[in-house]
């Protein structure tokens, strides 16, 4: 039924939000101002509009006063637009006839003066826009009941296992030749001192064995198309030059290969062959050939030892990269972190002194499968004293201001492991604060304290090999101020372990773009809401779990992996997803077939019919960005919910107090 001008009845609701808004904005003044605006049937204010009674207030007015538009002046629409839309729906008002006005995040919270005046202008604008809002139809599409997990570290593995457990198909894509991520590089894990490989490898094996998980290692996601519930992803499968279906994992090729390279898995401390599995428990247990170090590939056929010795004939140098397309309903991004390279902080001596190492390098030294077989030695020598320097690049205005969360705990773990492996070793912890907040963490700290570990509260100024006393000769000296005592100290040690900051991966920006995600100020990927929605993102259907979202330890990573699985499963179980209602459409009476819009849509939602000489917009593909609406020179494309009429009215009303009343705009 068409509405006449007189039929528009707007209800305006001003929220106090406790004192968050009411403390700075005069809500009573604002409410009576709103009441005086054209077409406003009622204006009220209330302490917490989003609460049950607040919502009930709106519902009652819609029903009893016959409101057909609702304006809520409160927090950001990004906060509660869904809440108030539901209120409208419950009261049988189309949810798109709601307009929200942000007078908190963008007004009361940021302006010490002028907040009320600005709030009036904003409310005035919202009312003017609301006047022109139209009901919109909501449509649904089915959800593809499959999930893509990107990244095969513990976060991705956990998510994949949980989704598969529910009986749905999972594609697990991992860039490296094997899953396991950084966790498989660790020796023991705090606070329980579980052997990392022992707790992880069963999960890795479970991934391999699960009939619903399709594991694609040595592969990368190159393109993502579609939208929530209906993604089409292109995956590049890099050539291993080994046929996965024939390889038995016997390892003879690796034994016989004469060519070596630095082992990435061992952080360059050890070597691997040109044909290699990164570590013995690799999943899949199928080697890859590194084209850069393989002489057969580099020198066109010279060598060929692996070809000769492989009894199954699994070596295949003719393999090429393959592009695979998969269709999924949800994507879980679990691409993890990198450790910062501390050579940037040159005063700490990394790369200048061979016995200054990073924590990950220490994990490899400590680990039985590492380059030293689990013996903590540098150049064959066992250190008798070790310094562990915390916060290298973290809590540092010059590098990363954030705390990397895990280092205090693993530093304590290192102290314990060193004490266990090296009789009488002295460990010095150079720290700012000891952050031992988790379950069992404080107890672990108490144990470390009693294990004769020396704590020096201070940030080392440098690590030097310049000896100033006989004791310092041949050692590395950590120069630091012990702030609790208030005196500088020089601590001679045999080895220095640095705790580098956990950083976003080097290609985080590209990953963000590929999956249409944002980055936080610190470069990690941005979650929808830090407290209430930590694994969802602004891109519906794409979830971020684990360290890709920020530094965290294994328990939290696993929890997020499970959370991501829950999100994906909720989507799949619901089976349907709502399409964006605020899409664009072509007014066929006005379209004259100029074709200016056709090449502008990034989703290819616009097609042209030569027979009708008209453009058409596919509303399942349209995301409502409005580019075509702005470009159409005939004004023939209408952007629902953000029409020219609505926006121009909003702008004019926004500025009504800046111009004389006689000026017509």
């Amino acid at each position, binding site marked *: 039924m068409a509405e006449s001008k007189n039929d528009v009845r707007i209800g305006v609701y001003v929220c106090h939000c406790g004192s968050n808004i009411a403390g700075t904005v005069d809500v009573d003044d604002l409410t009576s101002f709103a009441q005086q605006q054209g077409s406003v049937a009622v204006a009220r204010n209330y302490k917490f509009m989003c609460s049950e009674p607040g919502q009930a207030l709106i519902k009652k007015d819609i029903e009893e006063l016959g409101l057909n538009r609702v304006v809520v002046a409160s927090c950001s629409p990004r906060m509660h637009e869904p809440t108030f839309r539901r209120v409208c729906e419950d009261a049988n008002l189309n949810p798109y006839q709601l307009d929200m006005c942000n007078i908190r995040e963008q007004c009361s919270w940021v302006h010490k003066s002028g907040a009320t005046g600005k709030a009036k202008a904003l409310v005035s604008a919202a009312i003017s826009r609301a006047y022109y809002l139209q009901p919109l139809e909501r449509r649904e599409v089915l959800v593809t009941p499959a999930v893509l997990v990107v990244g095969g570290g513990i976060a991705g593995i956990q998510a994949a296992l949980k989704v598969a457990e529910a009986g749905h198909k999972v594609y697990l894509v991992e860039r490296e030749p094997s899953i396991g991520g950084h966790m498989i590089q660790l020796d023991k894990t705090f606070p329980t001192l579980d052997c990392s490989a022992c707790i992880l490898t069963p999960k890795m094996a479970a991934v391999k064995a699960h009939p619903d998980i399709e594991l694609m290692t040595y592969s990368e996601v190159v393109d993502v198309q579609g939208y929530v519930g209906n993604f089409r992803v292109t995956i590049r499968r890099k050539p291993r030059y080994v046929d996965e279906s024939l390889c038995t994992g016997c390892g003879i090729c690796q034994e016989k290969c004469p060519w070596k390279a630095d082992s990435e898995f061992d952080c360059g401390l050890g070597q691997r062959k040109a044909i290699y599995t990164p570590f013995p428990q690799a999943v899949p247990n199928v080697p890859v050939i590194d084209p850069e170090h393989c002489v057969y590939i580099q020198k066109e056929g010279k060598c060929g030892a692996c070809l000769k010795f492989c009894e199954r004939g699994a070596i295949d140098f003719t393999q090429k990269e393959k592009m695979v397309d998969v269709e999924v309903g949800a994507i879980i991004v679990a691409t993890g972190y990198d450790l910062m390279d501390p050579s940037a902080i040159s005063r700490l001596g990394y790369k200048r002194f061979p016995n200054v190492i990073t924590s990950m390098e220490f994990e490899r030294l400590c680990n039985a499968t590492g380059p030293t077989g689990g013996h903590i030695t540098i150049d064959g020598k066992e250190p008798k004293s070790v310094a562990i320097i915390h916060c290298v690049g973290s809590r540092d205005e010059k590098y990363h201001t954030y705390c990397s969360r895990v280092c205090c705990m693993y530093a304590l773990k290192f102290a314990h492991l060193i004490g266990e492996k090296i009789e009488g070793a002295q460990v010095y912890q150079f720290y700012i604060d000891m952050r031992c907040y988790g379950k069992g963490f404080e107890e672990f700290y108490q144990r470390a304290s009693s294990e004769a570990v020396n704590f020096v509260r201070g940030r080392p100024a440098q690590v030097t090999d310049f000896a100033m006393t006989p004791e310092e000769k041949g050692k590395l000296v950590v120069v630091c101020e012990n702030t609790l005592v208030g005196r500088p100290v020089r601590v001679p040690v045999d080895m220095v372990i640095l705790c580098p900051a956990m950083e976003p991966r080097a290609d985080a920006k590209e990953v963000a773009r590929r999956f249409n995600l944002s980055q936080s100020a610190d470069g990690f990927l941005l979650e929808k809401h830090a407290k209430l929605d930590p694994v969802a993102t602004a891109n519906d259907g794409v979830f971020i779990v684990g360290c890709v979202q920020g530094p965290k330890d294994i328990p939290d990573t696993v929890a997020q992996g499970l959370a991501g699985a829950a999100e994906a499963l909720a989507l799949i179980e619901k089976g349907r997803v709502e399409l964006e209602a605020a899409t664009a459409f072509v007014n066929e009476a006005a379209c004259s077939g*100029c074709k200016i819009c*056709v090449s*502008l849509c990034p989703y290819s939602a616009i097609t042209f019919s030569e027979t009708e000489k008209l453009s058409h917009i596919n509303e399942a593909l349209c995301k409502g960005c409005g580019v075509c609406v702005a470009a159409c020179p005939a004004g023939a494309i209408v952007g629902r919910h953000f029409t020219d009429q609505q926006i121009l009215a909003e702008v004019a009303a926004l500025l009504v107090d800046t111009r004389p009343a006689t000026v017509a705009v």
Partner: protein
Amino acid sequence: MSKPKLALYWAASCGGCEIAVVRLYAKILDVAEIFDIVLWPCIMDFKYKDVEALPDKSIDLCLFNGAIRNSEQEYMAHLLRAKSKALVAFGTCAYTGGIPGLANVANREIIFRRVYDETPSTSNAEGVRPQLSYQVPEGELTLPKFYDTVRTLAQVVPVEYFIPGCPPVKEQVEAVIQAVVEGKLPAPGSVVGASDKTVCDNCTRIREEKRIRSFYRPWEIIPDSSRCLLEQGIICAGPATRGGCGAPCLSVNMPCRGCYGPPPNVTDQGGKLLSALASIIDSQDPAEIERVVDAIPDVLGTCYLFGLPASLLGRVRLEGNALPAREAVETAKAL
């Protein structure tokens, strides 16, 4: 039964709209048959006082062409509004301001200085300027006040119908007169004698894909006469211009300049044309986009050739009585 009264008036115009009516050729005699013409300064000898003597609302149809740029034209707009039942803004100047509307890049002082002091052939050592009033032995001589800002007819008085065109094409003038005679006009406030689509609807050229790597002036290339001019880089306002003219300019290989005004759903014709032209520039590199855009020496003239007074901003903001330094002038000099 007396004949319906018809008045035609020209304000700030070139005379082309008079010719548009005269171009009815033989049909003009039919018009003279049907209507009782009470005012037509270009063709007939009626005086203003004849109009002043008429009762209010006694003129059935007034075709008012030209923009309002001086006090005489403003007076006549008000007079004819009072005396007319249906006041029609005839032609682009009355509808959106037209070419005279481009004077809104200047003001009275700038224009007078140019005309009365600075032109190469002016000799005016005494600095004579037009006076509003001058006493001579015979009495007082007056001249209309020349305004700083040109306005459309509807910006001065309420208007019933708008007939766009510079000038309106013959077929449309005939159609409108026919509609008046038959009493078949649409709701007041409408644009008549035009279509609700754009010039593209009238244009028979082939359109493929709109991606611009360079803009060209019409004299810089010899365009393919079968293909869309905009696709060849020549700025054509057709997509942002109301149709109904039959696209005659396109048929002689010249781009549309926008004289029929904005399409029905567009508020500001120049703004929309600007948006469309910019959107199809085929580059994501700011420096490249800058280079492509630099080929348009006069963006204001390109976008608001016929519609500056009717646009949202209406006229140029001047600092004092100086024309703003214009890249157009520099570019023109360079060429």
